């Protein structure tokens, strides 16, 4: 099952990240996971939130450049080698990871990681076959 990530284009300018976060906070949108990818003078803020569609609508209304991106979140054993075991599956099946980052919280004793694949449907199929637990929308809302 795919999750929806909010991607925001940000100029490398003082206070810009703060503006995004406080805008979302004011609108009762909860951030579950985030990462920032940066280039020289701009970056892309990636967010997993409880209400992605609404977050994008609010951001766009305030002239932010924002869009929705499909991602896959999976549970990974929270122990040495846990991530490697997942990556091994991808490696064997020729699945390319564009980027990844981690959740702050978890809802079992396992860690949650977010992956962006060039072919998410294929990746989900392979993960399911390998009995990896994919985090659904409901799970994110329950965190």
């Amino acid at each position, binding site marked *: 099952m795919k999750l929806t990530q909010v*991607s925001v284009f940000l100029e490398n300018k003082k206070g810009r990240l703060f503006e995004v976060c406080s805008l979302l906070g004011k609108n009762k949108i909860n951030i579950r996971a985030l990462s920032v990818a940066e*280039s020289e003078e701009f970056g892309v803020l990636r967010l997993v939130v409880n209400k992605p569609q609404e977050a994008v609508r609010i951001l766009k209304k305030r002239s932010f450049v924002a*869009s929705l991106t499909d991602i896959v979140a999976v549970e990974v054993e929270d122990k040495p080698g846990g991530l490697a075991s997942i990556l091994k599956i991808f490696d064997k099946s020729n699945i390319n990871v564009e980027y990844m980052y981690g959740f702050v919280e978890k809802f079992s004793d396992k860690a949650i990681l977010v992956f962006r694949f060039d072919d998410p449907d294929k990746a989900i199929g392979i993960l399911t076959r390998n009995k990896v637990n994919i985090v659904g929308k409901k799970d994110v809302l329950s965190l």
Partner: protein
Amino acid sequence: MVINYWDKEHETLDKQALKKLQLRRLKDTVEAALKTPFYKSRLCKAGIKSCDDITCIEDLKKIPFTTKDDLRECYPQGLLAVGLEGVVRIHTSSGTTGTPTVIYHTREDINRWTDLVARCIIATGVNQGDIFQNMMSYGMFTGGLGLHYGAERVGLTVIPIGSGNTKRQIQLMHDFKTTLVHATPSYLLHIYSKLEESGFSIKDLVLKKAYLGAEPYSENTRKKIEELFAIDAYNSYGLSEMNGPGVAFECLYKCGMHVWEDAYLLEVIDPKTAVELGADKEGEIVFTTLTREATPLLRYRTRDLAFIYKGECKCQRSHRRLSRITGRTDDMLIVNGVNLYPSQIEEVIMRIPEVGTNYQIYLEKEGSLDKLVVKVEIYSKMFKGDLAELDNLRDRIKDELRAAVIINPVVELHEPGNLPVFEGKAKRVLDMRQKL
């Protein structure tokens, strides 16, 4: 296509009759000019003591050019050809780049100017029943008042809001079902970028046409405006020295701007040698007023670069067509020894769909070398959330610019709305090199 005319007789005058009319009016203009201290001495030195010294239209070449500097030196009254009691309006230039210049208008000058603007409006297929929102500045800037008078004469419903106050502009466009706007291209693009934020979408508007002018812009910018708003956009050309808008305007066919040659004698010259150039050859535009009483100007060098299109227009108007202004003789930049016009950069970036509605050209010194920075806002709908995609976009803009202008630029991507916005003429070039 239905072609309407405001003054069919003059707009479709055959070449021979037009030439005859021009000669008669040129003689009148020389006569009027001789009443000003400036032209009296200038023309006498050139051997022209009365209008009888002009016997054919080719005699125009005996008359020396008038330059912007001449106008500055004549400030405030050196070019006034009538008593001040006959003047009903004064327009001065801002003087931001030096001494101001002034143009005086008699009641008849305003009347004729208004008729020329009315011709332009009718030529674009606009008519009574159209709702016209005039987004050009009013006041000393001639863009606002010029179109306003012409629009009222035609009988349009005019909303004289002037420039700025974007949210209110959008609200009024919606509330009064505006069908026609007059704005600088940069401001119209800014309006588009603010639609969503103002709680509207393009579907809430019934806009049909736009008049663009007052700043240089590329054909790709016009196309972009036409696509974003789903309208027809017409190029307008004018300069305060020649009244303002209403000098040249596109008709329904949008293939160059008809210069009203019964009101302005048009020449295109090589800016270096001052030799007249033929059709299709780009050069400096030179105008002589033919119907102006208070401030006649002879062979005024506009410093605007353009060319005249060959052939006739399908609209039957006999007045020749001028290309868009491709640059100014004085806005050329020299970057590391390479000549560069800002319009060349605009041409490139506006054809890239991921580029938004605003950009800026920034020049600075890096050591002894010039550094060209092109800052562009990205088009928000094109953003898919990918950093690599943005890096690719930046590289693509860079490559295309390098191919077009032979200079290696630095390209910066910006969020929409973060580069400076201009409500009047856009100032896109920031040259910081002199200050270092």
